[in-house]
């Protein structure tokens, strides 16, 4: 049993998964490469423990977090909660987590990594494939890249630009947002077709079938949006 990278799937899907893993191994806007890899690794640890209830944090549970862990407790707790209990997230929870991080932009980048890792690892699981091994994490400082004119207005997190609200959610971290859009296009539909071409398909499932799967999966996840 191999990974998605050697499963013979369509090229854009394979390339998008490779791009996510490569991006995790590079310095981000706020986190170093080893820290980003640690975030991705926490997603995988969390997926192995879906039994941990939302009110119990790994950082407050004996033996679950090593003393020399590279991430702050707030970051670890956020990754686990986002991975296993996204339907329980509240504004108060967000405020508490961000208070334990360096900046809201650190949080947005963490969300981007956690969400993309959920996207690629769930597909591997759904197809009975192995997850792609995580990279070591290269050297280098965070880039400091930020979206222009960020404001906290519609979302909990700072955002910028126009378009559908969910497409703006990661606008504080442009590079990760671009990688996420590539993955979205490979796993779902091109962003331009979301509302611009409701008949778009790639020759396998028609758009109604695609949206049926999307809707049902969102319901299973109790997604408020």
């Amino acid at each position, binding site marked *: 049993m191999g990974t998605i990278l050697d499963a013979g799937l369509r090229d854009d899907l394979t390339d998008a998964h490779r791009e996510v893993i490569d991006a995790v191994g590079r310095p981000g806007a706020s986190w170093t490469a080893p820290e980003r890899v640690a975030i991705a690794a926490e997603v995988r640890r969390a997926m192995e423990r879906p039994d941990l209830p939302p009110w119990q944090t790994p950082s407050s549970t004996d033996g679950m977090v090593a003393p020399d862990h590279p991430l702050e407790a707030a970051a670890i707790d956020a990754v686990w909660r986002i991975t296993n209990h996204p339907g329980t997230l509240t504004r108060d929870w967000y405020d508490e987590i961000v208070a334990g991080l360096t900046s809201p932009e650190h949080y947005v980048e963490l969300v981007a990594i956690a969400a993309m890792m959920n996207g690629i690892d769930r597909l591997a699981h759904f197809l009975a494939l192995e997850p792609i091994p995580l990279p070591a994490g290269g050297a280098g400082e965070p880039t400091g890249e930020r979206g222009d004119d960020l404001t906290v207005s519609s979302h909990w997190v700072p955002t910028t630009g126009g378009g559908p609200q969910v497409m703006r959610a*990661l606008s504080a971290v442009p590079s990760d947002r671009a990688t996420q859009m590539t993955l979205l296009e490979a796993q779902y539909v091109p962003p331009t077709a979301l509302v611009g071409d409701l008949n778009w398909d790639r020759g*396998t499932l*028609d758009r109604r079938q695609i949206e049926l*799967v999307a809707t049902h999966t969102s319901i299973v*996840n*109790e997604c408020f949006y």
Partner: protein
Amino acid sequence: METDGEIDPARLADGAGVPHGAELIAFVDAIIAGDDEAATARARLTNALGPEAMVDAAAVAANFFMMTRIADATGTPLDERSVAMSNDLRADLGIEGFTSKRLTGQTG
């Protein structure tokens, strides 16, 4: 069982009137559960729609594990247009009773 090209939300669990909708719903439930039924569900959907369609259905499901986490973790509100368009749909699907709705009190 089709509804003039529209998805029938009242019949979502039965496939909503979409061609092969029931098989797609069963497939998603089985692969998410990840139990012994998952292999059977993959084989069944492959037989019904082909291997590429089976992979694409799994990819869409995986994508919405990503998107739900982005939306819920960033406090993404519904677009105003979507709120207006989806009042009836959200009522039909029972979304107003979701845990996140109860906790946040958001209206959009």
